[in-house]
Every structure is written in C-alpha cells, then in structure tokens.
C-alpha cells in the first residue's frame, strides 16, 4: 500500500542522478555526494540535503562518486575517461587520474590512502594517493565493462560487478580472483556492509544478500519491479530498494515482507542508500532530483518535525508560521 511520506527534495542537478554515497559520521555531521550525468557532482549536508558545493572540472557525465569516511576527500568517476580526487572541504580538484575508457566506479580504502577505480576498460586499478604519479596496480579478468568495484574484508580484498554477469572477489596482494558468482542477468548494483560482512546485490527484480567473505547466499527477496539499487539499514532491520516504477520500497530484512512503498520521484530510481545513522535514506532518480526519506516516518529529525494528530488547521498554521521557509514563487 502506498503510504504518504514527505520526502525532502534536493534539486540542482539538470540530468539524471546515477550514483550517491554518504560519508561516515564526522564532528560536522555526515555528508552526501551525488553523481550526475550533467558532469557536476554535488556535495550536500547529509541530514538536511542542503547544498554545500559543486565539484567543477569533469568534462563528461559523472558515473560514480564517493566520499572518504571523514568527508575530507571525494572521488568521482566520469565519462571523460578520468577519475578525479577532490578536497571535499574546499572543493578544489586534487588529482586527475587518466584512464583509457569511461570510468564507472571509485572507492577509497578506510585510511583514504588508496583509491580503487574501474570502468569500461574492464580493469580494476589501485592508485596510491600518496604517490599518484606511480603506475597503479592493475587487476584484469572481467570480460566486460565493470559497473561497481568495492574494497572489502579490511581493504584486503576487492569485490567487482561487471556486465559479464559475474561478481568476482579478488585478493589485493595476489591480484587473483578468489571467488566468482555468476548470474543469468547483469547485476544492477552492489553495496558492502563491513559490520556483519554482508553484500547487497540487485539484479532483475531481485534483491539478494550474500556473505562477503564466502559469497554464500543468505537470502533473496523479489520486488514488484525491476530494481536498480538497494541498501541495507545499519542495524539490519530493514532494507530499501528502488527501480523502474519510480517508487521506493521498504522491506523487513528478517521476514522479507514489504512494509511500505512511497511515490515521489518522476523517473526510475537509480540509486538508494541509507545514511550512516540509519535515520534516513537518500534516493537519486532519472528525474534529476535526490530525495531524502525518513526511516521512521513521523519522527523529529533534521528538517522533519513531528506533528501531533490533534492539531487543527488553525493551530497548524500558527505553529508553522514561526519556523517556516517560504519557497520563492517560481513562475512558469
């Protein structure tokens, strides 16, 4: 049943939003970066969606974006055959790493010293950010474009998902594939939860959960529509998913039951991620917006304030007249 929730809509991008990532929790809150086909990734305050800055420099669609844990560095992967590392405090470009084809995915290690990149050239590359001029370590094996690559198991191993319908687990030191998972269809997204070693994979209408060490299947859940992305709550009680039908679905992780679904986006949902504190989840869509959704609807958090059901219209109007932001009139 479609419930109503008031998402916070973050506008600003002019093309579809294809990737988003949260930082860890820092003394200044947590942050969100969005990758967009307009080539201008944006940094936002994670709990409010307020725009902080735009990373300017890429000359093509940005396919992947990530932040390090402390939100001091950002990395982006773009169709201009480059991955860039940015200072996430000043917005300055720190490094450009040239590739031989479209770069699709980037990921920092926990200590932010290495950057993993991968893309349409079918190679995984590991750059030492303290020695960026040095040749990166290259790992080959995939037979098609790599869609997503992530560090896992204490940054000792790498998980990669490619259009060759496989997910491979690599050992960083030996550059060898330790395990391979083969699917009938291309994997649309992958998320790694270090605490609990869970891997969240989506393909077709399925959301699947695997053990990140052994790549053993934990469970699968089928959704009503083709799913593009899913995310597991930090406490592992729920997971959210979004895809072709524009809706966001929330499921109970234990019982696999669909709990709620929300309409709001005007295009397919490309990416969805829980915040590091689990209080909200963000979704990016073909419609060019990011929306922030509450995990517990009705709770006071960030820009949401709980409204008592006994409020009348007059009380509501007067209560709100103090703490409201009147959006500017937008003429057609």
């Amino acid at each position, binding site marked *: 049943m479609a419930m*109503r*929730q*008031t*998402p*916070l*809509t*973050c*506008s*600003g991008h002019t093309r579809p939003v294809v990737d988003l990532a949260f930082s860890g929790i820092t003394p*200044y809150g947590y942050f969100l970066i969005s990758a967009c086909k307009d080539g201008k990734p*944006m*940094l*936002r305050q994670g709990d*409010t*969606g*307020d*725009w*902080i*800055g*735009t*990373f*300017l*420099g890429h*000359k093509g669609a940005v396919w992947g974006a990530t932040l390090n844990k402390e939100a*001091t560095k950002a990395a982006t992967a773009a169709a201009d055959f480059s991955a860039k590392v940015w200072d996430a*405090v*000043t*917005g300055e470009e720190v490094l450009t790493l040239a590739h031989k084809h479209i770069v699709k995915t980037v990921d920092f290690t926990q200590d932010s010293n290495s950057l993993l990149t991968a893309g349409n050239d079918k190679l995984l590359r590991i750059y030492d950010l303290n020695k960026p001029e040095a040749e990166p370590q290259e790992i080959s094996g995939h037979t098609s474009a790599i869609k997503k690559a992530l560090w896992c198991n204490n940054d000792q191993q790498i998980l990669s998902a490619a259009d060759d319908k496989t997910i491979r687990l690599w050992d960083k030191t030996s550059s060898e594939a330790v395990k391979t998972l083969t699917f009938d269809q291309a994997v649309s997204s992958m998320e790694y939860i270090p605490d609990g070693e869970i891997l969240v994979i989506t393909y077709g209408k399925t959301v699947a959960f695997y053990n990140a060490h052994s790549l053993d299947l934990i469970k699968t859940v089928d959704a009503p529509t083709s799913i593009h992305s899913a995310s597991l709550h930090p406490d592992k009680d729920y997971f959210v998913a979004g895809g072709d039908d524009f809706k966001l679905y929330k499921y109970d992780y234990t019982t696999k039951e669909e709990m709620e679904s929300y*309409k*709001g986006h*005007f295009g397919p949902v490309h990416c969805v991620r829980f915040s590091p504190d689990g209080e909200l989840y963000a979704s990016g869509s073909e*419609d060019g*917006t990011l929306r*922030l959704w*509450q995990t517990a*609807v*009705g*709770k006071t958090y960030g*820009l*949401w*304030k*709980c*409204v008592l059901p006994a*409020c009348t*219209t007059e009380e*509501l*109007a007067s209560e*709100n007249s103090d*703490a*409201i*932001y*009147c*959006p500017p*009139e*937008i*003429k*057609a």
Partner: protein
Amino acid sequence: MLSPQTTLIHPHTTPYDFYHTTCPFHCYARDCNQVCGVTNMMVEFSTACRQPVAMKKAPVTVLRLPRGPDPNSRGFDPNSPRFIALCPTSIPSSAGEGACIEEEQRSRSELRERFLRTLIKMSNKPVNFDMYEGVQVRAKFGASDIDVLNFQVSELQTPIGVQKEALLRCHDMISFSFDV
C-alpha cells in the same frame, strides 16, 4: 474544474499558484506529494480531471526545503565552521611558519591581482592561445567566468573556419599571449 462541493481551503488563490510555489517541476501529476512550504498541507488530486480536490495535513511538518545550489558560485563556503576548522589557511605554504605564510599570502595576492588585471587588459584584443595537442588558435578575448574555467571569445580562427562566438575551456590551455 473543481466541483462546488469540494472547497479548497488552501490560502493560495488558484491551484496553479499552489503548484508553482511548491513543486519545482510545475507538476500536474496526480500523485505529487509535495508539501506546501507555507501551510504544510498536501494536495490530493482527482484521478479523473487531475484537479486538486482536497487538502490533507502532512504527517510530518517540513521546517523548510533543502537549500539549493547558488547559481553564482560553486559553494564550499570559506566561512563555514568546517572549512575554518579544517583549512585554517588554505595556502599550502612550504615553510609553514607565521611570517612565511604572510609573505606567501602577499605574493599570492599580488600575482592574483596581476592576473586579473591582465584579463581586463585583454578585453576585445586579439589573443593567441596555445592549447594541448599542438592546437594554436587566435581569437578576440571577451571575458572569463568567475572560476576561470571558460573564456568567452569572438571571431575564433580555426582550421575549419572562423567561429563567430565560442567558449574556450581553460583546462585545455597551456598559455596565451597578446600584444599590449
């Protein structure tokens, strides 16, 4: 059209005014659950005629909408607490001592001022640009954008003809020169 029985209690004058103030896409979609930033009410639409038919209280008040990008800058406010704490001086001074930082800052200010004055002096003058891949073009310089990412030029002379108006990417330039 709204039937006489359904009263729109929303204070805004017409349904379309409402759309314009709350929905950034001017949407007329029946499931738009945008919330009016003034009254925190949500509109319910008729599936038949797609007109608003009733107002509902939103389950949660939204204090305000998330702030959008500033059209005039790329953001990263240097006065934000995070910026001040993590970048006390954004000058990567090699020496790292007080007096050296001041001197370096003075030099940087001077160089920046000279650069800006050069850009002013260049206006409407023919300029030769040396770019990557051995590209050399000549054009009449118009202006730079605020982040010096693009130069607006006219009468750009290229091997395939003269381009009346063009934008040159500064990232692609190695050097440029002009006669003072």
